């Protein structure tokens, strides 16, 4: 695979332990992942899952205990950070406080010994890319958090790295600015054609921005795929739970065929569920259903899960219905608000119908 031109970064069997002996903490456990050229790739996971450690290993701030990191086929795992054609946007931005905005952006080029004229031109181009030309001579304490973010981006992109690493760069921004920067980042990635490896714990951010993402937990990669694959076909319980809202149902696999299976739920209903890729589980299983893939109907329909509508939460764009199933569990249904009030009222018996193929079998 290393010879494949379309691969930008490949981590092969990376294990990273901190500390020694019994006190050793295994931050990454035999992680392998492949990031393609020009891709917006996200490492997503809760704090402590090892995503930042993986990023720091690629940047060169840490060295793996075992394993190789290939950049365009070449093992860089033992190189110091200043020998890697990879740049980082830090969570704290880490702008040099004794330099101006323009001097910050020029830093990498100066360290590479680029000619003065080339550096100046590149700095101007980068500041234009991030729309900061007018503030080029400001000190770094005279700009806002969003502007500092842009400068950090320009500084990291200026030396034209092969891969740009972003360590939760949006976490310090407020909601509105974060939304803007998500779009901006995506635009910059398209314009520069640089491979972005982005670390976040925000699943919404990961889904909106990434071409592909890896979901991590406890030092392992659980699933790699496009946002749609991950959201609609989570590989396991953790991924399903971590990304979006999910209903879990227990059941038994009756028959399985090409990519899908008949699952007899404990609630007595049989439904057709999608199987995880490559897996043909048998027997007891868990099925996940996204709240928006279920439809609420009046009691009487015989194909759905019957229950009592317990609560209605209106949230602008959509409405959430909390349905207490016969098993005692709560089932969440989410429906787009069009017009008029919902037909059902709290306390009424209802039936939840699950759209065909929307249920997904997950490993435990």
């Amino acid at each position, binding site marked *: 695979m290393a010879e494949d031109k379309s691969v930008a970064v490949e981590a092969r069997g990376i294990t990273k332990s901190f500390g020694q002996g019994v006190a050793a903490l295994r931050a990454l456990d035999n992680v392998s992942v492949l990031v393609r050229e020009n891709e917006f790739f996200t490492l997503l996971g809760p704090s402590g899952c090892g995503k930042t450690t993986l990023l720091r290993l690629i940047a060169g701030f840490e060295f793996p205990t075992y394993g190789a990191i290939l950049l365009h086929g070449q093992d860089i795992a033992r190189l110091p950070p200043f020998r890697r054609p990879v740049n980082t946007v*830090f969570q*704290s931005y*880490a702008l*040099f*406080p004794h330099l101006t905005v323009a001097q910050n952006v020029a*830093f990498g080029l100066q360290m590479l010994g680029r000619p003065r004229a080339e550096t100046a031109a590149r700095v101007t181009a980068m500041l234009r890319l991030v729309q900061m030309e007018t503030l080029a001579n400001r000190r770094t304490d005279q700009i806002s958090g969003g502007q500092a973010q842009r400068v950090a981006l320009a*500084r*990291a992109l200026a030396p034209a790295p092969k891969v740009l690493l972003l360590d939760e760069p949006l976490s310090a921004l407020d909601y509105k600015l974060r939304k803007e920067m998500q779009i901006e980042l995506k635009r910059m990635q398209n314009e520069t054609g640089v491979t972005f490896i982005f670390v976040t714990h925000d699943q919404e951010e990961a889904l909106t921005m990434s071409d592909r993402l890896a979901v991590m937990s406890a030092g392992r990669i659980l699933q790699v795929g496009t946002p749609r694959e991950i959201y609609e076909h989570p590989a396991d319980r953790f991924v399903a739970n971590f990304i979006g809202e999910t209903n879990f149902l227990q059941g038994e696999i009756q028959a399985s065929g090409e990519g899908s299976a008949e699952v007899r739920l404990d609630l007595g209903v049989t439904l057709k569920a999608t199987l995880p890729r490559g897996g043909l589980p048998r027997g007891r299983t868990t099925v996940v259903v996204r709240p928006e893939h279920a439809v609420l109907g009046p009691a009487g329909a015989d194909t759905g899960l019957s229950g009592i509508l317990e609560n209605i939460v209106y949230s602008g764009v959509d409405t959430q219905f909390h349905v207490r199933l016969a098993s005692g569990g709560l089932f969440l249904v989410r429906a787009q608000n069009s017009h008029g009030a919902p037909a059902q009222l709290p306390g009424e018996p209802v039936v939840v119908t699950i759209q065909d193929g929307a249920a997904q079998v997950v490993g435990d």
Partner: protein
Amino acid sequence: MARRFDVRAQSGFATVALFTFFLLYLPVAVLVAYAFNASESMTAWGGVSLRWFAAAWQNDAVQGAAWRSFVIAASAATIATIAATMAAIATTRTPPYRGLSFKYAFINQPLMVPEIVTAVALLIVFSRIKVWTGYSGLGYLIAAHAAFCIPFAYLPIRARLESMDLTLESAAADLYATPWLAFRRVTLPLLQPGIVAGYMLAFVISLDDVVITEFVKSGGQDTLPTYMLGQIRRSVTPEINAIATAFLALSVVLVTVFFFINRRRTEPQPAYGDKA
């Protein structure tokens, strides 16, 4: 509500404060006032005059001692600051390990050991070296001063390094700066206020030293403080006051200059974890 816990609201606070200031500054004020005394006496006021400043200025012994003090202080502070900077980097840019606090104590040893002990020890060692080498120049005083100035230079530099955001050094390395370039282009400029503070402190401490200098100096190597001490043993004139006043003025100027340098250097960088 808040006033109840305010120390300024405690009874007797003003009295204690005034008494303390009185003790601290009245002797200095008297000393400075008598420097301008026209009379020969240390006790009787004879009108305002600058004659003792003129006398001190024209006194060859004072000039020699002042110059020696300056040379020793400048050399010792330079050596101490370089050593302290290296020590501070070595003790902060490393993961904590067993024995690190011992190292702190070791570096700061001159603050703990009674000065008279160091003085006697140096006297014995240096007299031996003088016999062996035949050299009896200012080198001994400079070496001795540099040694006891190191902790004074070390403390502000270490404080500055500890408050510095380590990510800045990572960022420099990420942007292709070799360790040396990262140090020169990022760490050192950010460290500068600490280094200036350390140098100033070391300079003033060296300038002020009596005990070690008195023991280590060879004949004719009086510094300003040991010269003054020597004068007081003989006849006391307000010339001593004039020298002390000039000394005081110099210290005030140094501290003021340092304050402004430090403020200018620190103010542009309150963000990004830089609190020094």
